[in-house]
């Protein structure tokens, strides 16, 4: 199969994720969209590794996964704490530093 198709999928996924981050208010959904973008990147990395015939892209993809896992741990903890104290997971409400 033409490797370029994977790239199209990756771009599509990334776009969906980016639009989700900008448009949605719920912190959990925003978070999931961020994960979507990360995975879109991973897909692009792996595809390029396949196209170029070396392992560099795959190595970076592993790194991204590790970072994403850490990020999920910290991010979810923050979101849960915010939800506990404010009874809301809306990212628009969490603008206390400005107001």
């Amino acid at each position, binding site marked *: 199969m033409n490797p370029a198709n994977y790239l199209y999928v990756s771009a599509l996924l990334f776009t969906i994720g*980016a639009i989700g*981050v900008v448009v949605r208010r719920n912190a959990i959904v925003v978070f999931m969209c961020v994960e979507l973008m990360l995975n879109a990147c991973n897909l692009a990395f792996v595809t390029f590794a396949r196209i170029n015939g070396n392992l560099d892209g795959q190595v970076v993809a592993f790194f991204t996964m590790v970072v994403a896992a850490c990020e999920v741990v910290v991010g979810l903890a923050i979101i849960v704490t915010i939800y506990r104290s404010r009874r809301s997971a809306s*990212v*628009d409400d969490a*603008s206390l530093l*400005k*107001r």
Partner: protein
Amino acid sequence: MTSNSLVYLIALPLFGAAVLLLSGRRSDRWGHIFGTLMSAGSFAVGVSLFLKMLGNPTGERALTQKLFSWISVGSFQVDAGLLADQLSICFVLLITGVGTLIHVYSIAYMSHDLDRRRFFAYLNFFIAAMLLLVLGDSYLNLYVGWEGVGLASYLLIGFWNQKPTYATAAKKAFVANRVGDMGLSLAIMIAFATLGTVSFQGVKEHASQASTGSLTAIGIMLLVAATGKSAQFPLQAWLGDAMAGPTPVSALIHAATMVTAGVYLITRSNFIFDLAPTAQLAVAIIGAITLLFGAIIGMAKDDIKKALAASTMSQIGYMVLGAGLGPAGYAFAIMHLLTHGFFKAGMFLGAGSVMHGMNDEVNMRRYGGLRKFMPITFATFGLGYLAIIGVPPFAGFYSKDKIIEVAFNAGGVKGIALGTAALLGAMITAFYMTRVVILTFAGSKRWDDKAHPHESPFLMWAPMVLLALGSVASGFFFTHGNSLRNWLAPVVEATPSHEGELLSPAVVSILALVLVAIGVGYAIIKYLLNEVPQVAPADVTVFTKAARKDLLQDNFNEAVFMRPGQSLTRGLQVADTKLIDGAVHGIARLAIGSGNLLRKTQTGFVRSYAMWILAGAIALVATIWVVTL
């Protein structure tokens, strides 16, 4: 020849000043005695040096002493060195001799002043600075003393600075002197730039190699310096106000010594002026203008000290005129300086004695008939008076007539103009000095009953008597066998004028005496035979009004220098606040404004930040895409 004792001349009074100033009130009880002793000690050293010089052959009389190496930069060397040659020693004896007499006088004169110790400290400091001025062996050393006497003059004019007008007078003197000092520093700089040296010896040796233009520039700048310090036209306005200082100060600094520093400077720089005829002519012209200027002011002053100050200005005009006449005149300028030192200091002390007896009244219209109450003051003042108007055989006759004679013989139109000015000055001098004497000592009493005129104590009249003796005898002593002229010859290379004699000495003397008689006679008619009003008459000519206001020199200075100067400062202040501060504040305002604009993007909404990041990323990708296309 070197001599190790030169430094003591300066060190003794300097030590006195330091002790008196540093020990504070503790030395109040003996400070005046100590200061007088230091000055007398300096005089003793001066006399011993003079005797030593007399014992040496003519060519080897100059004594030098190197104190320390002052500036040493590559090939440029300036030593702090002292030089006592035939010219310097005349000044040393005058400064320390008259200075010591005035110290003695001040003990009595200032006895009621709480700050007498401080007064003696300043007097001692002045003596030290003045000695440094005349003993320095380079223009740079001279400059230190030059500034020192300016400071001493400022401190002493403003000695009673609790009166704002006195403090202002001190400031005025200081500012006018600064203008002159600038001239001296410029002269030194030009000399260094063109000749590469600032020592008298070096400048003398190299002067002939410099161009006439640069020598003229040095000469004119030295003249500016002399006009400032010696109260010559156009910087003379400060001297009248300087009479705010205590009378001994007026006698010592503003009559006998400091104001003659300009004459010393010109005479010392004879090797420059002799090679720069234009500058020399300028000196003579300034002298002639000032001698008339001062004399005219002197005619209209009712304040006895201001009348004497105007007379000082006029007499220094004679000296500067003499110094401006070249080798023929230097010796006579110095002779007049020395005789003037005696008679003018004596008359100032006399004026102080009169004020002492009259509750510090200075208006001569409130005196009258004082000769019966103050016989010694009258006698000493009278001898000084006879000396200044030039009656033979008193001192002024010898020195002033010689200057008039040399002026006439300078040749051509220049000689006739300068000589006529000097003769005219002699007549006016006779008039105003007679006026001073008549108003003060003769006629009927015009003081009120509160004044109790009395003779001054011994400590005051003794110095006056000694100075009066000097005003009687010094002229004859200096002229006898051309003694002073021959004495000064190695320094100023006195050569008689080569121009033909226009007027012989006898003719000049007779002319001068006739004019003096006219001046005296007119004053007698006007002030002795007619009633003198207690208040100066108001319906006088414009001319008299101008003379009472120092010939409008203050108004001129105010209109030409002070007002535009103030406008300039105000303009600069506006430029500073509007332009420079405006630029600085403008930059700050720009930063604040742009910050305010950028702050609007900080909404606090995570999604809007994400939007910005996305937009940035898209813009970046788009740019790369466009570039690689």
